[in-house]
């Protein structure tokens, strides 16, 4: 396993959706709609707004980082001790939209760039990964 200093854990999901960006934007930003496809939340489209997503398995603590209506939205996403940032990008594609979700988790050395790191898990996991790499 790679434990390079600049490494992040990144998940990207991208999909062409046959609806215009404006409509998708509503589903991404209006709590009564967010609840229908993601989770219950007290989201507000305002930078720095703190909110959470709630589900039967627990809660995700978030804060809005950037917002550009109908184009991009990003918020921090802290759950199960792993801190990450979720960024949504909407790009017009024909009559529809290319919707992209990127989630990046932070390594311990990047922790300073990220407030609210409540646990030392990243450090712990990094040291475990080093141990596991030796075992392999």
């Amino acid at each position, binding site marked *: 396993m790679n434990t390079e200093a600049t490494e992040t854990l990144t998940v990207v999901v991208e999909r062409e959706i046959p609806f215009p960006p404006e409509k998708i934007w509503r589903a991404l930003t209006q709590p009564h709609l967010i609840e*229908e*496809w993601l989770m219950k939340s007290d989201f507000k489209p305002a930078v720095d707004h703190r909110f959470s997503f709630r589900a039967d398995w627990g809660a995700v603590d978030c804060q809005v980082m950037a917002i550009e209506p109908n184009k991009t939205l990003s918020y921090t996403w802290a759950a199960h001790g792993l801190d990450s940032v979720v960024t949504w990008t909407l790009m017009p594609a024909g009559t529809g939209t290319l919707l992209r979700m990127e989630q990046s988790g932070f390594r311990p050395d990047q922790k300073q760039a990220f407030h609210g790191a409540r646990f030392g898990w990243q450090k712990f996991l990094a040291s475990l990964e080093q141990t596991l790499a030796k075992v392999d």
Partner: protein
Amino acid sequence: MPNAHDALFRTLADPTRRALFERLCREGEQTVGALTAQSGVSQPAVSKHLGVLRQAGLVRDRHEGRQTHYSAQLGALAPLIDWTSQMAGFWQSRFDHLEDLLKRMDQ
């Protein structure tokens, strides 16, 4: 997302327990006596921590004569290390729900 995460995090949240587990990862199988000698806590306390680690699947015990040997079960950490594929699956299913919702929504 799974409760397996919660159980693992809870188990490893205790610093003494985490130190015991890390030591087993690093140094391989150990007896309770050897673990106690370097842990700074009593043998009953070490045994109790090992019991919690065993319940979480993080260690395995092996009896040999009057001694119990413990070893780390690295496979139990897979749910943590496999974060990216878990999240990818989570978001794929959310995209499905989002598309369903968009079909139902008014323009």
